[in-house]
């Protein structure tokens, strides 16, 4: 049937307006267009965030430069601190022998007499220092030979424990035994293994870093 009342343009326009396919296309375009709003919103916020963080980065870099400039003023102190840190294991590993001898003097029982005291370092670790190495012992062996008056043999245990209390933490009793001897005296042998830990406060030693009390 011929359409005598409508022009072809009008038919085409009506076809675009009413046909399902074109409506679907319109819907797709409309949805895509509407989705531009959140996309635009997120794009704006992202851009703002990016700008804010870029500004912050610039501030942080400026702060870093300023800190580095301030740090230059402390270059000498830093170098000294670094040198002290290099020396630190050497000082920490040094057992104050005089304090050990003083501890023996303080704890030895009145009924004991000492014949020989030996303090010897062993198991060295070579630490790097400027120009070479320096050996630091890992263990000190303290051996004490002496005698107790006859009838006071039990004082060896007291002496052993009392001296151990005065030695640095980690000191171990390796041997504590009574030996054969003349009737009037009971010889003994006492051996400790002492690991230098750097904390010698039980020996009554002041820390090197502490201000001098004198």
């Amino acid at each position: 049937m011929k359409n005598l009342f409508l022009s072809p343009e009008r038919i085409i326009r009506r076809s675009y307006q009413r046909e399902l396919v074109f409506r679907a296309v319109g819907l797709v375009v409309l949805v895509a267009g509407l989705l531009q709003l959140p996309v635009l919103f997120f794009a704006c916020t992202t851009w703002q965030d990016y700008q804010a963080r870029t500004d912050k980065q610039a501030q942080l870099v400026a702060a870093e430069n300023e800190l580095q400039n301030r740090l230059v003023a402390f270059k000498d102190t830093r170098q000294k601190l670094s040198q002290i840190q290099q020396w630190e294991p050497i000082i920490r590993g040094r057992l104050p022998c005089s304090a050990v001898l003083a501890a023996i003097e303080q704890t030895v029982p009145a009924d004991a007499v000492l014949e020989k005291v030996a303090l010897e370092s062993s198991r060295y670790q070579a630490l790097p220092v400027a120009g070479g190495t320096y050996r630091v012992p890992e263990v000190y062996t303290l051996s004490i030979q002496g005698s107790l008056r006859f009838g006071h043999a039990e004082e060896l245990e007291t002496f052993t424990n009392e001296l151990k209390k005065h030695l640095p933490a980690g000191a171990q009793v390796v041997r504590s035994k009574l030996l054969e001897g003349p009737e009037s005296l009971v010889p003994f042998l006492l051996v400790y293994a002492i690991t230098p830990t750097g904390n010698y406060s039980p020996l009554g030693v002041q820390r090197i870093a502490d201000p001098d009390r004198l």
Partner: protein
Amino acid sequence: MKFKAIFLFGAIVVSAGWLGLELKLLADGWTAVRLLDQANKKQETANNHVEGEIEGLRVSKARIEALYTRLSDTMIASRGTSSLHINSTPMAPLNSDGSAFEAAGIAGFTQAGLIVQPVRVPNGEMSIIYEAGTASLEFHRLVPLLAEQENADLFLYFDKVLLSRPPSIPPFSTDPTYLDTRLTIRLLTGK
């Protein structure tokens, strides 16, 4: 009909492609923001660390310098020919060739009457080693001497301390007891 299908398909593809591209750009933007945020946090932590270090150095400057001076003075005093001349008493036959190393660190021992002898130093070790001995010191004089030397040189190591009562002195004797003393002393040297 074919045209309509192509038109619909084309519209969907273009819309989806456009949206996909926008989402991709958004995701890239978020990633960039996140990376920037991480970098800033890292930088902030580093700045705080440096600031803490500066503050620590500022507060501890006097202590660090005092400690350094104390330690390095020990080194200089022990090593150089320096202004600290050793009193070369007959009791101290320091007959090493490198007498430039005769140091204040052992001067205290020689002055106290110990006989001091340098010994060979292992290769690569920055030290001078001495063996010292005496039979003229009592315990109550020896301990302060060792303490004094240990305090004077913080790098002074006694590798061996051997004290023994002479056989001629009976146990529990109240007479003065001069101990047989043998020491191995090691000092850190500078370059």
